[in-house]
């Protein structure tokens, strides 16, 4: 990107100015879609309520002293005997669903973001190594990625969690294991294209150390497709975690994510007490949709093929 901005001295001054700030241009292009802006706004809001959950939630849903069994399975909008309102109803233990959802969102987002960051780092390192060094290392890494990607993520995660057991750390390990290959593949294919470009040759001619070429020149230019993949994968990670927790294989009951809340309410669904499952599901849905809206727009603005 740095190259693109400085290599056009012949352009008229007015156009040069606009080219000069790629971040600003990206922001403008992103804002062109109102839907994407809505997604981003929702995402910021969700992240904010998730981070501040302990302070803004009406009750601490896991402090048993604050729960009253007499208030269990109340429909949305009911009031407790002490006059507290349960806007989204309560679950089988008299837990305020709104508070449970805020805390669940916190866990779901944490797991999604943490596993994505870890998988990104791992995939990036392996993919760059494969592209830059080539040879047997490339063959080995990509073969493992191929084999892994030929099986659905849910199956691999299920096997891993069946072996590992429950827990936040374990589900992150499982999610990283199923996700690193996407990044490794993306970064490798980008790096192989970039490696043959002139600026890498120029860097080599300058006799820069290899690590500087890889980290300072190759890596930044491989980032755009990776950002797109990472955004989509956060949504995938959250969905996958929710699914595994729903099946009873993800998180323990002491750390309920949205998926576990939904599973918890499932048994009451058939007796018409829909809110115990429905609202956590709605929260999950809005989260995933807003991430996908942002990801879709990012893909469009970062894809050079769609540029006219």
């Amino acid at each position, binding site marked *: 990107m740095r190259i693109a901005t400085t290599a056009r001295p012949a352009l008229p001054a007015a156009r040069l100015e606009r080219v000069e700030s790629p971040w600003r241009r990206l922001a403008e292009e992103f804002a062109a879609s109102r839907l994407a802006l809505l997604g981003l706004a929702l995402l910021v809001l969700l992240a904010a309520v998730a981070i501040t959950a302990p302070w803004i939630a009406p009750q601490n849903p896991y402090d048993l002293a604050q729960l009253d069994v007499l208030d269990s399975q109340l429909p949305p909008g009911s009031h407790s005997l002490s006059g507290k309102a349960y806007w989204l109803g309560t679950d089988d233990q008299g837990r305020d669903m709104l508070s449970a959802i805020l805390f669940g969102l916190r866990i779901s987002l944490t797991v999604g973001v943490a596993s994505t960051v870890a998988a990104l780092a791992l995939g990036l390192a392996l993919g760059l190594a494969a592209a830059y060094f080539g040879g047997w290392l490339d063959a080995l890494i990509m073969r493992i990625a191929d084999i892994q990607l030929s099986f659905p993520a849910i199956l691999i995660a299920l096997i891993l969690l069946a072996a590992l057991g429950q827990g936040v750390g374990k589900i992150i390990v499982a999610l990283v294991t199923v996700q690193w290959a996407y990044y490794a593949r993306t970064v490798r294919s980008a790096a192989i294209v970039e490696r043959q470009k002139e600026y890498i040759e120029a860097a080599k001619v300058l006799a820069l150390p290899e690590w500087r070429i890889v980290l300072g020149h190759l890596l930044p230019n491989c980032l755009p497709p990776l950002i797109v993949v990472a955004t989509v994968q956060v949504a995938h990670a959250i969905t996958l975690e929710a*699914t595994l927790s729903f*099946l009873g294989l993800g998180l323990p009951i002491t750390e309920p994510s949205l998926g576990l809340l939904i599973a918890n309410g499932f048994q009451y669904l058939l007796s018409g007490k829909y809110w115990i499952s429905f609202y956590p599901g709605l929260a999950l849905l809005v989260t995933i949709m807003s991430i996908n809206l942002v990801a879709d727009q990012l893909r469009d603005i970062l894809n050079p093929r769609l540029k006219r």
Partner: protein
Amino acid sequence: MAAYALRRLGQSLLVLALMSLLVFVGVYAIGNPIELLVNPEADDAERLRAAHALGLDKPLLVQYGVFLLHAAKGDLGRSFVYNIPAIQLILQRLPATLELALASTVIAIVIGIPLGLLAGLKPHSWVGRSIMAGSILGFSLPTFWVGLVLIMVFSVHFGWLPPNGRGETVSLLGVPVSFLTLDGLRHLAMPALNLALLQLSLLVRLTRAGTREAILQDYVKFARAKGLSTGRVIGVHVLKNILIPIVTVIGLELGSVIAFAIVTESIFAWPGTGKLLIDSINQLDRPVIVAYLLVIVTLFIVINLVVDVLYSLLDPRVRLATAAPAH
């Protein structure tokens, strides 16, 4: 060609051997089944006897060796819980899963391809836009959540469809199937639709993208210039050319559908292999877990192998690329 197929087969067998070791070691690490199987009040001698009877007192590698020896003879061990051969248990449940997977594939094709064509022909109309919005929704919605909503609407609210089970089955060539009875169809409808959603969205997107590319091609312009009817141009010229990737994806996705059936079967209590797997994981029924995973892995390897070989038959470029070593 034969050399290519043989090499792919060799690779596949290697993957299978590797996966069996990984699965066996992984599953071995899950809890101690003796705790669940033996009466909690049993004394140590009884526990040892039970462990010995199940072969759990031997070292892991010996257990794996014994397992491989038996597996080569088609015996994947006996279920700890049901005390019948694990493979028999899986084969009993497999028709239900396959029926569900096929039904959902049919739904995805019948709805997905026409919608994708429509969206591809009119990408900027409100129809095209809403179809795409729907497909994004289909991708984003977690399968289990859609299942819950389906139950909420059609079982709890309207009371039209039963929320669980397989319903009445009839025997077709010795295999019990649901889709030939009205009760069975009513039971099949929701799980199949639920499972179809992902594939459906994928097919809509693929068909749309293919159509948009194809209608810009010269052969389509030429067909139009010849004065062919729009129906014929789309039905024959466009559809035929975009069908290759679509068929490939349908084939490849069959495996994913079976894997995702784990979720759908758990929601709708559909008595297939996926539900069996979840139950077995919860009951630490190791032989069933291992057998299920090996059956699924084999299935995947076969699907991938068939698709690869078919591809090299259809597209000479694949064959040439593998025959000539890359520089």
